[in-house]
């Protein structure tokens, strides 16, 4: 059963079409991540579901009920924002209890205590319940902010880049925790991010957005291995997929319609110059800590690929290349399978 559905939703802000014909269904207990650059319409999508924006067309359905005309408070959703907004004068406990004490809900204090305790344990902040919200580290504050959403049990949690203001280590920890919590509680989450690692590691399905449209929706593996367009292919992978004109790789048996060839780093093999295959020159080797990128020049085109730590390469070296499993894209950027059929 779908927990949340958007049916052919459109939204304009003046001359800007923020969302165009967006249809999306999120199943009960599913973790869906919307991925895309700034301005793609990800946050607007969340706000439409939350009721913070009204669609110009289409409808929003939550647990089978059309809520398009309802106020945010009438919808069964919880929102976590990018910047944690805690009440600085309250303790962690009172911050967490706050949503349950709202006059609309009016839960009894014994229930609230149990629920807050439970969520605090889940987030590993049970030691901090009596602290002032301001006496916490950034990571703890963000956990409290997430906890404030979790004390409720809405149909869906809407999260707008909740981890983006944290350092890498904390982000990685909370990423795992959030996924664990979602699995344990079977909650439904729609999560917005720019970060492909967050999308790849947490999502059951990823929706890639661009200019107000949902370009592709699928499991992380589908999106990475079978992107429907050059745009989707370029959203995932570090370093990014290399897109080169098809004529550059005349030796590859590309389909006739192919205009662009996509080469992922793991599909470029580098051999010494005495090997057969297209020639390239090492332009430079970039050390980025956990990854070293080799920048290659193939004719006038640059290719960036991950350096194999065992392979000693230096600027100026001539090398031979082999390309495995290239992806082919037609004139408009749609992927075509190797046998020439639109993928």
């Amino acid at each position, binding site marked *: 059963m779908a927990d949340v559905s958007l049916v052919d939703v459109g939204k304009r802000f003046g001359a800007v079409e923020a969302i165009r014909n967006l249809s999306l269904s999120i199943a009960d207990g599913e973790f869906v991540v919307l991925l895309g650059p*700034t301005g793609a319409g990800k946050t607007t999508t969340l706000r439409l579901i939350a009721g913070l924006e009204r669609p110009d067309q289409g409808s929003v359905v939550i647990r089978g009920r059309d809520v398009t005309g309802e106020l945010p408070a009438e919808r069964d959703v919880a929102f976590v924002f990018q910047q944690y907004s805690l009440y600085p004068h309250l303790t962690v406990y009172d911050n967490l209890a706050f949503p349950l004490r709202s006059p609309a809900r009016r839960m009894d204090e014994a229930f609230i205590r149990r629920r807050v305790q439970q969520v605090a344990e889940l987030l590993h902040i049970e030691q901090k319940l009596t602290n002032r919200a301001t006496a916490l580290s950034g990571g703890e504050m963000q956990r409290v902010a997430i906890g404030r959403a979790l004390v409720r049990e809405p149909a869906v949690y809407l999260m707008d880049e909740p981890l983006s203001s944290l350092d890498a280590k904390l982000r990685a920890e909370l990423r795992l925790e959030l996924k664990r919590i979602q699995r344990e509680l079977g909650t439904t989450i729609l999560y917005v991010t720019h970060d492909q690692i967050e999308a790849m590691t947490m999502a059951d399905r990823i929706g890639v957005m661009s200019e107000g449209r949902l370009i592709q929706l699928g499991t992380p593996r589908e999106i990475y291995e079978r992107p429907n367009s050059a745009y989707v292919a370029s959203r995932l992978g570090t370093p990014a997929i290399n897109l080169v004109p098809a004529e550059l790789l005349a030796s590859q048996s590309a389909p006739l319609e192919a205009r662009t060839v996509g080469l992922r780093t793991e599909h470029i093999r580098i051999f010494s110059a005495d090997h057969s295959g297209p020639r390239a020159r090492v332009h430079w080797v970039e050390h980025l800590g956990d990854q070293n990128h080799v920048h290659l020049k193939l004719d006038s085109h640059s290719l960036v690929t991950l350096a194999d730590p065992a392979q000693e390469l230096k600027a100026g070296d001539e090398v031979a290349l082999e390309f495995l499993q290239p992806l082919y894209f037609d004139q408009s950027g749609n992927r075509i399978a190797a046998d020439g059929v639109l993928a």
Partner: protein
Amino acid sequence: MAEIKLEAVAKSFGAFAAVKGASFTVDHGSFFVVLGPSGCGKTTTLRMIAGLELPTSGRILLDGDDVTSLPASARDIAFVFQLFALYPHMNVRENIGFPLKCQNFPRAEIRKSVEEAARLLRIDHLLDRRVGGLSGGDRQRVALGRAIVRRPKAFLMDEPLGALDSEFRRLMCGELRALHDRIDATSIYITHDQLEAMAMADRIAVMNQGRVEQIGSPQEIYDRPKTMFVADFIGAPPMSFLKVHTAPRRGDRVIWIDGARVEMPELFEGRAEGKFALGVRPENVAFADSSQLRGRVIGAEYLGTTQIVTVTTAGGQVKARLPSGKPVQVGETVGLRLRSDKLSLFDAASGAVLSSALDGGGRHG
């Protein structure tokens, strides 16, 4: 251009020691990044260099001159804060020229300096636009223009990109570094983002709890961390640590982890028996059936190009970065081969690394 030198600079706020004796030298023309988690003292350090805080002890030298007690206005330094406030009622030209106008520069000179700054930032076509209608990136460039227009000796930047989305942040990293090179500036940049640090810095100082834990090039910091804190703070995922109880001796090239033999770089120093941690980065771990070091796969995170596989061993959890095409079954037992020339041995009690051949063959601490 300027050389900035800190000598045992410390700062306390009441009973709280925010910075505990920071010493480092930022060379002429270099891009120096101070990296650390929130609360590590990096912003306080920067504010002391700027003259916005007075150190409790220690000295700050700018081009050899002691500026420790000089006010901010008497130091020829530009400070770029995280949240740029542009004057909304002024256009781009007036915003950039504002610092010069305040100092009563002649109008012709202001005009020339503003145009030069705008050219460097590639926003000269926007000079007569209002700032309200600009994109986030262009606003950021205008704010930078306001910092560089005075041509100060040094730039201090406190997470200037913190408020931007991640994609745009990467782009601005490249621009900032290119700008630094074009104007031949000395820059000190504060961040908690290791990717920013790695991408921009000539040298990085990693801070933790008011102390500078290590100073070095990005590659040094990554490959040869001096402390477990640095090893754990840098890298995504960070370094894994295998716990060992042993008495390492000078000259050792092998360490035993629960009966499994693991080769490592030759140790240049020994220690009394105690708890140690063998540190290995995920990309230096491979599966090898023949290896004595064995563990059980407890999870695999698919990242597209690669996957991060977590394995529990007798020494603790190890993360391996493997090609995503490699089939991995959760629950299976695997052998792990660690790249012997890339391992670090830490004293688990102090967190300090033991000096070894990893340091480049020479003997130094």
